[in-house]
C-alpha cells in the first residue's frame, strides 16, 4: 500500500482513534541464519529521559512503523509485500539492529568454510 495524502497528515486531525486499537502490541521476529530473534522494543527508562529520550522516541517510532506495516500487509497482495516502503523500512530497521549479529555469523560461516 502506498502512503496516501490523508494518511501522511493524519496527526493534524485529533480523532484519538489509536486508543481503539488492540492493547496487544505486534511482535517482530528477525531471521538471522536459521534463528528467529525477537526485535526488542523495550528499553530501560532513566529519570533524565523525562527531558530527552531519543532512544525511547525512536523505539516508539519503530513500533508505529510496525503497526503501519501490519496494516499494509492486511491490505496488500503477498507478492507485493517486498515492494512496500514500510517493508523496506522494517528491513532496514532489522538489519540496523542485528547487523553485528549478522556480520559475526557471516565471519564465523566464512572461517568454517
Amino acid at each position, binding site marked *: 500500500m502506498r502512503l496516501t495524502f490523508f494518511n*501522511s497528515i493524519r*496527526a493534524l486531525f*485529533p480523532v*484519538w482513534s489509536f486508543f481503539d486499537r488492540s492493547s496487544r502490541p505486534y511482535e517482530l521476529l528477525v531471521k538471522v541464519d536459521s534463528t528467529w530473534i525477537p526485535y526488542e522494543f523495550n528499553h530501560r527508562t532513566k529519570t533524565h529521559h523525562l527531558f*530527552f529520550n531519543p532512544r525511547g522516541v525512536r523505539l516508539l517510532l519503530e513500533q508505529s512503523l510496525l503497526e503501519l506495516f501490519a496494516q499494509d500487509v492486511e491490505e496488500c497482495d503477498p507478492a507485493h509485500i517486498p515492494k512496500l516502503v514500510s517493508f523496506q523500512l522494517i528491513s532496514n530497521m532489522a*538489519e540496523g539492529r542485528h547487523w553485528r549479529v549478522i556480520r559475526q555469523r557471516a565471519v564465523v560461516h566464512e572461517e568454517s568454510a
Partner: protein
Amino acid sequence: VSYLNLTTTLVSWAMFLSGVELLLMTRDSTFFRVWNFKTLEPDLAHALRLPPQVLKFLFSNKSLIVIGFIQVLSAIMAYKFPGPELFIALFICQLLVSLRCRGTLNGGSDMMTFVLLTGVLIAYFGSQKFGFLYIAINGLYSYIKAGVAKIKHPDWREGKALGTFSPSLMPWSKLLSWPVILFELLAVAVPFVPGFAWPYFILAMIFHFINFLLFGLNRFFWIWLSAWPSIFYLARLQTH
C-alpha cells in the same frame, strides 16, 4: 500569569525538548540507515504530489537536521518572546517532521502537539476563548476516549492488558487496570464538578509520570501538561 502565557511557555518548552531530542536521534548513525530519504521518497512523492526538487529540499536527510535546529531556535524564541509567527514556525516544523515519518513521529503526542499549536494560533488570530476550549475539549476527550476504549476491551476489564505491554507489569496488571480505567473516565466530571480540576490534574500528572517510567513516554508528559492551563480555563468558565 495569564492562561495564554502559561500555555505558550509550556508548549515552547515541550517543542524545545522534542527538537533537541530529534537532533540527538539523528546523530545516531543507524537512524538514517532506516529513515533515509531515498527509501521514503517514493511514498512522499505519491502522497504529496510535489516535484522531486521540492521533496528533496523539504525531506532530505540534511533537511531533517535543519528542521530540528529551526524548531529548537523557534522554541527558545517563543519561550522568551511569544508571538504568532514563532508558533506558525513551530507548527510547520512539526508538520514536516510528521510528514517525513509517514504521518507521525510519536503517535498521540504529535496529535496533541498539533492541538496545542492550533489552539494557540486560534487564541492569537481569533478568540482566546475558542483557542482554550479547543485545547481543553481535546485534552479531556483524549482521557475519556482512552477510558472508553479500555472498558470495551476484555483484556483491560480482566486486568491482563498491562502485562501484554511488558511482562514485568504482569503482577500489577490486575491491580492497576480498573484504577486506570476509572481515572480516565472521571475526566468527564472535570468541567462540571467545582474544585475537581486540581485533584484530577495531580492524578493526571502522576498518571503521565508513571507512563513515562513504564513506557518511556516522555513527550506525552510535557505536551499533556501543556494542555492543562486550558482545562483549568474551561473548569473556571463552567463554575462561573
